[in-house]
């Protein structure tokens, strides 16, 4: 997956410098391109860092940063061949430890991913976690995520990708219709406890997102895929808007807006009406809307259009009628 360029803070730049030096020490000669690819950063970021490293050092005995107290590089190699060769080293011998929070983030991430087929070897994961703890500068912070829960579907998806074949399954779409789908699996994504398969759907002839908990009877077929992960550019967002989407005005209790963030389109106007936040949500049909609103009783109310209000009212009333 392409990494988006993030604006770097001075702290990030420092972590990068402290990490780049030991890497360069281990490589007697490395091209800027190779270092950039290894760290997943633009080449210019490597060049900037090398320029800074080459003029840095320690005050030294004279307190005046004499030549021998500074890092040095082979300037000819750098300027003419775009290669990095460190010729004088100062102060740094090895890679830095992880901070307590850095180690905690990785440990909690590993826990969360324990449902992946790649994590089948539990002993290996435990040893990895203990290495992270030992490699941290302090006891890793107590942040943890419950192991994600998925069924055998993930393993079958992986098998299909390995064999380059389509996966076939029954899918209950969000309109409540059952369909038989043939899909070229492209990527598995998750948001907290929910898991999704993104793939090329042969029924729709387009990229679609499937919730794993709506997939039944998955089967690895012997039909070859027509679209592989490298052929298709997946959009960054899991759910995309379409021109046919319906816009609905809703009021939501202050503080609860975060629950709706996936549904609020960019540029939606938000106002405060009687202490509640009035905003717009985008839905592909009212089948999804009625479920969403019914999960937030007293917290979210549809204001307009009237058809949307009627669909929600009918859904809730039908539900309540079952208790008579």
């Amino acid at each position, binding site marked *: 997956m392409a990494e988006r360029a993030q604006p770097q803070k*001075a*702290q990030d730049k*420092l972590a990068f*410098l*402290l*990490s780049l030096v030991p*890497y360069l020490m281990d490589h007697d000669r490395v091209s800027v391109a190779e270092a950039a690819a*290894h760290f*997943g950063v633009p080449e210019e970021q490597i060049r900037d860092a090398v320029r*800074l*490293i080459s003029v*840095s050092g*320690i*005050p030294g005995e004279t307190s005046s940063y004499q030549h021998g107290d500074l890092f040095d590089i082979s300037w000819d190699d750098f300027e003419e061949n775009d290669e990095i060769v460190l010729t004088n080293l100062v102060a740094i011998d090895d*890679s*830095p*430890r*992880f*901070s307590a*929070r*850095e180690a*905690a*983030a*990785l440990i909690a*991430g590993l826990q*969360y*991913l324990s449902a992946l087929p*790649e994590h089948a070897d539990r002993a*290996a994961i435990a040893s*990895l976690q203990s290495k992270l703890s030992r490699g941290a*500068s*302090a006891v890793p*912070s*107590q*942040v*943890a995520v*419950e192991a994600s829960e998925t069924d055998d579907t993930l393993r079958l998806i992986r098998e299909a990708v*390995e064999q380059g074949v389509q996966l076939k399954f029954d899918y209950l779409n969000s309109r409540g219709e059952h369909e038989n789908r043939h899909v070229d699996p*492209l*990527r*598995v994504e*998750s*948001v*907290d406890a*929910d898991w999704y398969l993104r793939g090329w759907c042969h029924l729709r002839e387009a990229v679609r997102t499937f919730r794993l*908990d709506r997939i039944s009877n998955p089967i690895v077929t012997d039909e070859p895929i027509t679209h592989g992960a490298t052929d298709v550019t997946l959009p960054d967002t899991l759910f995309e808007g379409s021109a046919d989407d319906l816009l609905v005005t809703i009021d939501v209790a202050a503080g609860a807006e975060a629950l709706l963030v996936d549904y609020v389109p960019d540029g939606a106007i938000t106002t405060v009406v009687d202490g509640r936040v009035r905003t717009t949500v985008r839905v592909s049909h009212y089948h999804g809307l009625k*479920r*969403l*609103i*019914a999960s*937030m*009783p007293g917290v979210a*109310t549809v204001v307009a259009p009237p058809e949307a*209000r009627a669909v*929600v009212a009918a*859904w*809730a009333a*039908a539900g*309540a009628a079952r*208790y008579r």
Partner: protein
Amino acid sequence: MPPASSVSRIPVEERLFSLVLALLATDTGLTKNEILSTVQGYRQKFQHSGDNSNLERQFERDKDDIRDLGVPIETVESPGQAGNNQNLRYRIPRGDYELPSDIAFSPEETTLLNLAAMVWREGSLSGESRRAIIKLRSLGVTTTEPVLGYAPRVRVRDAAFEPLSAALEKHLIVQFAYLKPGEGEPRLRTVAPLALVQHQGRWHLYADEPESGSTKTFLLRRIVSAITTTSKSFPPPAADQSERALAGLEEVWRRHTAVVEVEPGSDAATRLGKRRGTVAAASGALELHYSDANILADELASFGPEVLVLSPPELRDAVRDRLLRTAADHG
């Protein structure tokens, strides 16, 4: 900021990098005065006979930023000068700075760690996980490309997460208003944070409450005020707090069961049937586990007529009341 002078501006990262190098290189430590007067980025602003209080504050902030990265800066007292703050000496002990030499990661492990870091690409731990990966790459291990691409993500949307995780790290007592379901008014809580855990997709704070003398679990979404971090600290707890918190939540989840009837073939039947721990009875009814009745009631209400709660009665009432409320609000 010094007046625009002949001194060209030294970038922040160059000052921080120079400080780390200087403190790593010294065995005996450097006094603050030595640092400010000789280290690149400070020395340019240092007044030899004047007030350096701005520069001293800068140095304090820089130390915090550097420690945040897991770089240990220790202070040692000058021999014979105990108690004299001006003569405290600063250094970075090499053994606590460097990754122990026996720690190495295989390409497969590095691939797993890359994925683990990707989990946090949004929100409050994204900076930490990004920096952890940079440090990992420092070791020069190349990764194996996974067979199947993954894009896992854990979200941290609760505003309380960031201040709580900072207080957790520093072992500081916090205060917040907490709205317990069934209580009309939020109540101010004063607690010692022990762990932050996500269970069933929701973030919880596990904390000691001195007032009640007990350890409690708070749902972050029910914290209705900003977090106030006090200056009062508490002794670091044992290291297994997050395991205890998760085990406690799991126990509550296991103990609570609800029996629901679902419309065959419906969204409710598919999704509830696939939930962890769900058992289908011979009658076709589903037995579900849950940790919080109010949250389960919200979830079951979303299924409208696809679900009928059979037991427990409180849950049955809660779902019915929710549906009636939604119907009334939209009538």
